[in-house]
């Protein structure tokens, strides 16, 4: 199939414009991270006057970035694993069973996407406080509190996407497993999950990114002990100098794991979306 000239022009223009739009901020981030402080305090330049890697060294001292990094890794990692497990069970139930309350559950879960965060921020905070005073589990100012919050944030979309994915896996496969003597859980583990790998990866990526990037709740629910990168990065601007070069270096460093992970697994993400969300 040949391509007409207008189509080719269209393609080149679109690709060129969007590439520039996409790349410029990333380019600025990378080059500014390699500038000495005087460069980022004066007029902007497209290239550092001298290339230096000092910002990458100094940024750990200006704010305790390393501890924020550890917090973010633990919180996002734990939230992702738990959210994935919970979403798998829930989506399996929705996809394979018809039971009372099924549609109520699906609708409610999806409509939580609509809730403005500011509406349940303070109530959630108060509920955490009450849990602490009645059960004694400390949730405010701990990583556990953030994990529980974040895993729930990604649940609705995860369940919805996975249920769609599971629907696409033929039930005959479950039956075959049952013939082999597996129970429903056996079918889930041995048949459905292996077949749903792209969907699982997509959900995991989504959950991780949600937790890694959350700002609103982190700004209220974190203390020194559990502060995540989302809030920690903003502390650079409260120093006596605005260290834009260090801010850019830190932004770069906190982005690299997520971006690489996402880009490596993006095919799975697209496949997961196609099968799940885009049936």
């Amino acid at each position, binding site marked *: 199939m040949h391509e007409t000239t207008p189509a080719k022009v269209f393609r080149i223009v679109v690709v060129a414009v969007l590439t520039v739009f996409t790349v410029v901020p990333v380019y600025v981030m990378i080059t500014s991270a390699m500038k000495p402080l005087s460069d980022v305090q004066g007029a902007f330049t497209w290239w550092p006057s001298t290339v230096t890697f000092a910002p990458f060294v100094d940024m750990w001292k200006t*704010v305790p970035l390393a501890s924020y990094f550890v917090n973010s890794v*633990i919180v996002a990692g734990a939230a992702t694993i*738990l959210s994935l*497990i919970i979403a798998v069970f829930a989506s399996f139930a929705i996809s394979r069973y018809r039971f009372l309350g099924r549609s109520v559950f699906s609708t409610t879960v999806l409509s939580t996407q609509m809730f403005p965060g500011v509406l349940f921020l303070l109530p959630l905070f108060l509920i955490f406080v009450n849990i602490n005073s009645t059960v004694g589990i400390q949730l405010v*100012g701990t990583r*556990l509190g953030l994990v529980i919050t974040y895993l729930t944030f990604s649940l609705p979309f995860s369940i919805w996407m996975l249920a769609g994915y599971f629907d696409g896996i033929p039930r005959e496969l479950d039956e075959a497993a049952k013939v082999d003597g597996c129970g429903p859980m*056996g079918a889930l*583990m041995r048949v459905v999950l292996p077949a749903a790998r792209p969907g699982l990866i997509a959900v995991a990526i989504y959950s991780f990114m949600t937790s890694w990037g959350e700002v609103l709740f982190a700004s209220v629910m974190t203390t020194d002990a559990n502060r995540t990168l989302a809030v920690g990065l903003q502390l650079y601007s409260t120093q006596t*100098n*605005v260290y834009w070069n260090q801010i850019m270096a830190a932004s770069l460093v906190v982005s690299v794991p997520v971006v690489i992970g996402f880009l490596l697994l993006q095919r799975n993400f697209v496949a997961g979306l196609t099968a799940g969300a885009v049936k």
Partner: protein
Amino acid sequence: MKIRTLAATAAIAALALTTAGCGGGNNASSPSGSSGGGSITYWASNQGTSLDNDKQVLTPQLEKFTQQTGIKVNLEVIGWNDLQTRIQTAVTSGQAPDVVNIGNTWAASLQSTQAFMPFDDAAMTAIGGKDKFVKTAMDTGGAPGQDPTSVPLYGLAYGLYYNKAMFSTAGLKPPTTWEELVTDAKKLTSGDKYGFALAAGSYTENAHFAFIDAAQNGAELFDGDGKPTFNSDGVVNGIKRYLDLMQTDKLVNIANAQYDNGTKAVNDFATGKVAMILNQNNADSSIVANGMKSSAYGVVPFPAPEGSASDVASHVAGINLSIFDNSKNKDAALKFVKFMTSPETQTALDKPFSSLPVLNGATPNFTDNPEEAKTFADIYATKSKPLPLVPAEDQFESTVGKAMNQMFAKIASGGTVSTDDIHNAMKTAEQQVAAAG
């Protein structure tokens, strides 16, 4: 069945992993460190050049306190951007530290939450008596007629910092009236040098100068019933005068409209980009940290216009100490407050934090420049007026301060702000304060 067990185990393992991961954070500095009998939690505000610097300065003192009393202090230093939210969540949740630093302008507002322990006579005696504090400082402890809920810790006042070299090159003397300030600054403004720098994007700084300029005009922000009177001519003209530094006098770089905290203006001053700044005395450490010697600048009181009603040059600024009412270690907390406000600790902390003494009879030691010390001590003692000690004071800061942010933004992007515009904005601010009450 086996697989189901397996899945359950996996889930539990994952949970255990998280809780294990939290263990460290939990024990080390849980915000309600009030459980242990021999320890208290202290939230300190950021007074030094960085959060880390504060920790380094405070730790030896806290160790000394532990040695004397056996009480351990869990310290957390909190930046100003976070402090209000953190105090709010602590008030709301009751998961609070035992002792906390507050900006003294919030004292009456925070008092009205009833979350803080009133210092009654017994408590006052326990920390060494009310009379050990300078009266102006003690007056900021809470609303008049009630037991204060905070006591002074660090004293601060605004002063007009000027660059000695730039002034002598231009053949100028430091200004003694507002008019002189404007003409001097105009002479010093040329090219990329400006006469003045303002934190015009910081609502707290703007609100402070709305108050000081209004006070110089003899105007009050609240009437006797605690109702806002922002829209009075004295207040509006005071704001106009402050805005005009950028608008009509053009002696402030319009880029200052984006300065959302005082440190940026201090930077400009320390690096010789501007000839004057208005700042509290804690600017000293930042100026020196940015490479300007303490002998290279001088300080005079922020001057009032000629023939004005009052020569107020500052509000009574500073940091107070409060004890949370639900603290389970009130005795330990009182001991700690006593320790922090003792002459020895005060002397040790005033210098690194560049603060004025809040104790009677103490001499300022925050600077090695005796002239500067004298000027600030004088401003603090005789030319300072406390911000209104009413519950709605914080509302004044946020509504009026933010309105001024917008006015500066408008001026900076080429618009003009007329007296009528200010009247309208103040009317809105009054309504907002009324609605919040």
